């Protein structure tokens, strides 16, 4: 659990982060959204003390983050940034081994962990381990960057626009990978982004920052349904709201009894995908199957449209 209490950062006269308090539950993903200059990155960097707050406290599992030296604290917290920041003079395996090496793990344990993470990220340890970062594609570099952040099995992972430099297709894949890995390791993740779509997709809770202040901190559905201010409303994008709302739930939850003609849609696709498919193919209903191919029922345009309405 991460507790941020009344944290403020001032540079001379400018207040970059203004008295922000929030609690991030363990094993969840919190996304911080805001425009550039809203203080979201500074807020993130105060958690691992890359920036020292002017006032306020950050507690990790109850312990003040100032109770150990900054470098020691940072070894226990994963940190992934935009443009990955891989060490160009070190191989992929050495890059991933950075923090375990600093912590003094023995060789076998480091190697086992590096191999595990590389396999998890679909990078063959034999083929890619000895390569240098510049020999990888952008998507691969990004995966190595996240693998490096996770190498020392941190409970908390901080991510600063980690997918910002990726093209849309690789980006979607990277987001799916992150969700899968979060599930697997149970890591608490705080992710900074300027993309509301990403924030809604990844976040269990979303924190909206504006001019250094925390404007709203709530579940995605709540942010969509009841934006706390005009700023949040603009950020959500008025015309996007119903679709974003639909993108929060899997088709499985919208299934109605009965059958339908045509190709089935998997139960874990989002309701937004289902609606898009229905509208595009001009059909009134789609059959829904689960992962084993068993028929679950059908989704209808009518049913989905009801679900896209503002929650009461």
């Amino acid at each position: 659990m991460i507790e941020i209490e009344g944290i403020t950062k001032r540079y001379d006269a400018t207040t970059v982060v203004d008295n922000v308090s929030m609690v991030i539950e363990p094993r969840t993903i919190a996304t911080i959204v805001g425009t550039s200059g809203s203080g979201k990155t500074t807020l993130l960097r105060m958690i691992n003390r890359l920036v020292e707050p002017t006032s306020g406290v950050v507690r990790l599992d109850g312990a003040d983050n100032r109770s150990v030296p900054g470098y020691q604290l940072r070894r226990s917290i994963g940190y992934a940034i935009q443009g990955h920041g891989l060490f160009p003079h070190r191989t992929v395996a050495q890059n991933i081994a950075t923090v375990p090496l600093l912590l003094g793990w023995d060789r076998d344990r480091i190697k086992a962990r590096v191999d595990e993470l590389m396999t998890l990220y679909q990078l063959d340890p034999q083929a890619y381990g000895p390569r240098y970062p510049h020999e990888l594609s952008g998507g691969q570099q990004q995966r190595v960057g996240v693998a490096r952040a996770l190498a020392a099995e941190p409970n908390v992972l901080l991510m600063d626009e980690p997918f910002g430099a990726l093209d849309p297709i690789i980006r979607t894949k990277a987001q799916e990978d992150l969700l899968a890995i979060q599930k697997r390791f149970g890591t608490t993740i705080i992710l900074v982004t300027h993309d509301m779509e990403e924030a809604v997709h990844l976040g269990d809770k979303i924190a909206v920052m504006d001019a250094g202040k925390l404007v709203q901190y709530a579940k995605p559905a709540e942010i969509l349904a009841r934006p706390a201010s005009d700023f949040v409303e603009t950020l959500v994008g008025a015309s996007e709201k119903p679709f974003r709302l639909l993108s929060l739930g899997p088709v499985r939850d919208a299934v109605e009894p009965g059958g339908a003609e045509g190709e089935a849609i998997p139960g874990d696709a989002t309701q937004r995908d289902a609606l898009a498919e229905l509208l595009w193919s001009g059909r009134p209903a789609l059959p829904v199957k689960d992962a084993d191919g068993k028929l679950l029922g059908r989704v209808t345009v009518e049913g989905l449209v009801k679900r896209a309405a503002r929650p009461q």
Partner: protein
Amino acid sequence: MKAWLPALLRLAVLALLVVFITSPGWFEPLLKPLTENGAPAIYNQGSLLTLTLQHLRTVLVATVAATIVAVALAILVTRPAGAEFLPLSRSLVNIGQTFPPVAVLALAVPAVGFGEKPTLIALFLYGLLPIFENALTALTTLPGNVMEAARGAGMTGWQRLMKVELPLSAPVILGGIRLSVVISLATATIGSTVAAKTLGEVIIAGLISNNLAFVLQGGLIVAALAVLIYDGLSAIERYAARRMGQGAE
């Protein structure tokens, strides 16, 4: 054919140089036409090999000392604690460069006496600036996100310096050392005016006795050394840069 031609050329220059300084007698007929009144065509007041080695040793000692001091200074002024010394160190090193080497020699002789010492002082002062400038450039233009990642991973200041900053700066620092070595190779010849044992001795002897053959052989050896060492260090630099993924490939 294009790929091996430069390598072959360098090898030929190296072979020629080695043969010339070990058995200069073989080249006597070649240089004889440049002398007058039956003067000797090959330098005869000392072995060319010994002079070459002493010349190289002088340059090496001065460059190693200059490298250590310049890099240490550059590291110091790029730490947060030393930042205020940046302008001061810059001007100090610049002063070292504005003094003509001859003036440094002339001033150093009364202080430390004739011989190798004043030459070493001049070469050291002269070698500082290129290395310092390059080290400073390298250390202040490191990629921001890499440094951010190094801090975020929990490296201490010392670990960042040793594991990230210096390795990444190596190609540019090497470039400074290369410049410094070449300048020193040439400047070392002046050291012979204050009785340092360098190849300048051959050139000066030639100038005094109006013997063109002496001047030419002294000058050519220094030139060949400079070209070969410059090339060698460039190759190391390119290798280092390629390792960093900065190679111009």
